[in-house]
């Protein structure tokens, strides 16, 4: 499993932010400038293709922060 820094880099690409955003594990998903349905699809694809992990829309709704998504993927990959 990647480090959180690698995961954040992949997450940033997957969401396709319009403007540069500085992300941390503590970043709250719903406060991100482009946390919308398109971003959710991008993150689901990224988790599948980069980590071989299936996450659902409900999984993402249950995550508060970017670190929560990382922990979920790490747990499923373990």
């Amino acid at each position, binding site marked *: 499993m990647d480090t959180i820094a690698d995961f954040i880099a992949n997450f940033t690409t997957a969401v*396709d932010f*319009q403007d540069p955003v500085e992300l941390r594990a503590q970043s709250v998903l719903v406060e991100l400038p482009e946390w919308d*349905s398109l971003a959710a699809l*991008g993150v689901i694809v990224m988790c*599948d293709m980069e980590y071989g992990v299936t996450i659902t829309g409900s999984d993402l709704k249950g995550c508060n922060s970017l670190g929560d998504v990382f922990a979920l993927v790490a747990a499923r990959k373990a």
Partner: protein
Amino acid sequence: MAQALLANIRFAGLASCVPRRAVSNLDCAPEKRLERERLVRNIGIQTRRVCETGQAFSDLAERAANELIAGLGWAKGDIDALIVVTQSPDYVIPATAIILQDRLGLAHTTLAFDINLGCSGYPYGLYVLGSMLSAGCIRRGLVVVGDKSSNPESLDNGLLSLFGDAATVTALAHDESAPRMYFDFGSDGSGYEAIIIPAGGQRVPLRPEHLERLPGKDGIPRKGTDVILDGPAILNFSIREVPPAVEALLAFAACSRDQVDYFVFHQANRMINETIRRKLALPAEKVPASLHDFGNTSSASVPVTVTVRLREALLSGPRRLLMSGFGVGLSWASCIVDLDRPVLSPLIEA
């Protein structure tokens, strides 16, 4: 496992018809431009063809059918079967296929009925018609496939930017020298809510309040008769089911990837289609797309892609296609079909 092969069926021709009216997803207020560019970049859809008010799916189908019949040189009295695969019928009842029998001037001896399927519908239509033709009693048939999925009145931006309208007509003929066609089918009704029009059927009969827009769980106001899409559920389903179904079909047909000239997938959105392509390790040049110019045209998306992207290649010599549809139901189906210079009309605009 629902797999099947069909013998004695020749893919005789195909015509696709789209509305003349083109709508751009980049046609927006300047302050929305960057947001729309991000949308287009990710879903891969810039332009869609949208029916005018009053223009029905069957109007596109009628135009395509008449052009195809003329191109084939078939006498209308020799067409034995007409199947319509759509979720955009002219009426709740009767079936659109029967109305089209009359509008096309086909004989009263024509077999005609509808099949209620969306994005997975093209392989199903080929299989049902092909099954009837295989024995040879019924010799020639048409399968009309497509939908009018656009809903310009919708307040759901995700939906508005996705769907285009199209109708296609494919002609099959009994021919004992034709190579076999191979099919693989799947259904998962547990996901029926992922793409749904909730009101207007027997389960939730239409009431006056269904014609008012009320906020859904996502806050978007919708009528009860509007389509609701669960994007993440559709994505999860598509990338879970389609790649192994394609692999299973290739194994069933004892066919390698290299023996397939083109893989034509339902045009869902760029993220779904690219993920399926990458999971199957298919080179981009063997996976044609029509998303950018026509959007998601439901069950018509596979034959529309064949018309607009493969016509020249198919007219130049025999080609093997693997075609795969997936979506509402949840339902999916794939087929391997050999085409030997069929009649292929250029794209029709109506």
